[in-house]
């Protein structure tokens, strides 16, 4: 369980990158929902925390691949592989990310 930041420090519609290995992106949607996914686009080296957040979708800032924050699945090309999702909780006003164990699949 990794503390990220205080809830009030992540405004709605914004995102923050957590420097884990690999890095994780935490999003707070316009509706106030919190999501965490792996930060690196599965298509090419780009940080999804710097992407365009619209509803539950984030668009990669480099090539406009789009991912569903709820499932990690890409919703359009050029990405074809999902990003991992991670559970997020808020405890004592602090956002925490619970990292999903690394899967044994090929990179």
């Amino acid at each position, binding site marked *: 369980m990794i503390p990220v930041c205080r809830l009030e420090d992540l405004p709605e519609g914004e995102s923050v990158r957590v420097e884990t290995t690999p890095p994780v992106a935490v999003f707070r949607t316009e509706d106030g929902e919190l999501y965490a996914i792996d930060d690196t686009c599965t298509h090419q080296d780009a940080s999804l925390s*710097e992407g365009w957040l619209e509803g539950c979708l984030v668009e990669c800032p480099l090539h406009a691949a789009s991912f569903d924050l709820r499932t990690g699945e890409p919703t359009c090309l050029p990405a074809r592989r999902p990003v991992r999702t991670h559970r997020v909780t808020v405890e004592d006003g602090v956002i925490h990310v619970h990292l999903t164990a690394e899967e044994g699949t090929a990179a």
Partner: protein
Amino acid sequence: MRTVTIVGASLSGLYAARELRAQGFDGRLVIVGEEPHLPYDRPPLSKNFLSGRTDEDQLALTDADETAGLDAEWLLGVRARGLDTRGRTVVLDDGRTVSTDGVVLATGAAARRLPGGSLAGVHTLRTLDDARALRADLGLGARQVVVIGGGFIGAETASSCAGLGHAVTVVEAAPLPLVPQLGADMAAVCAALHRRRGVELITGTGVAGLRGTATVTGVDLTDGRTLPADIVIVGIGATPNTSWLVGSTLALHDGVLCDDGCATALPQVVAVGDVARVGGSRAEHWTSATEQPRVAVTNLLAGRTLQRVRTVPYFWSDQYGSRIQFAGRHRDGDTVHLTEGEITDDGPGESGFLAHYERGGRTVAVLGVDQPRAFLRARRELQRQVREQAVPAVL
């Protein structure tokens, strides 16, 4: 249309195949590729692939599931030699012919080479095989590398070579690299990235010739200097692959001439990607190659231009740890305003910058260095303007 042949099995060719199936074409689909490889992504070749951080399997643009779904006949490792538009036949180098009703031209562009014989140690960087050969050469220990051409390929390659510990010099014939792409002011800022990482940039000097008998030993410059070199990388642009179309009825001039819907003068032939001169301009950009196929395929299946490509040009480049992104069209005389970050005497500031190019009070282009979020916002704004212009004034 019972058979469609895509000539060119790279990015735009694959996207065209996807679009054909997505738009309901259920006939015979033939994909001809000069290289023996299934489609792969080229942008990483000069960056992470060269530096060893990306392997070949990560370059693949498609997988077994998708290729099965496309249900295409792949004719790989063979070059197309001619297009008989009356007989509707694609003629291959090995003598085979493909009878077809529709054709998507996606043959791309080939790296321009220096005149003269080929010396060991001299490379271009366009294909996977080019990149493999260069990576092998670079793996032989620290060397003197001379990169000819300071454009995107040259700069990215120089950056990767410097990162691998080689001594690198970039030679650019123009007074500054990237002026056509970025304009003089911003080109000067980005040129500083070379110096900052210890790469020497020699500008305003052409190359007179290469030295060496079997293996390259140096580069002679037109100003009389000779640069010692173990490895030379020639990054002086690319030429659209149209020579195989000479003799067809298609109009060729720096690419296959198309309307702004990627349609040629023949209703059953469209062109996409680097080989296509769409609506008067040809772009060698990843984004164009992925955006054009949707429109091209719609128009091919309709037999006339129903849709036009209406996008904002966009390209990016990674050099020396900095990410350069540009969208829009700039012209000489545009005024450039810094809207985020800063520019120092030594190039982009610590946190990069965002610059707007303005003409007549409107933003016409935007350049970002290490400002992906601000750039994305500005690029979307530019796209929104273009879409609004596309709406008829009177409904």
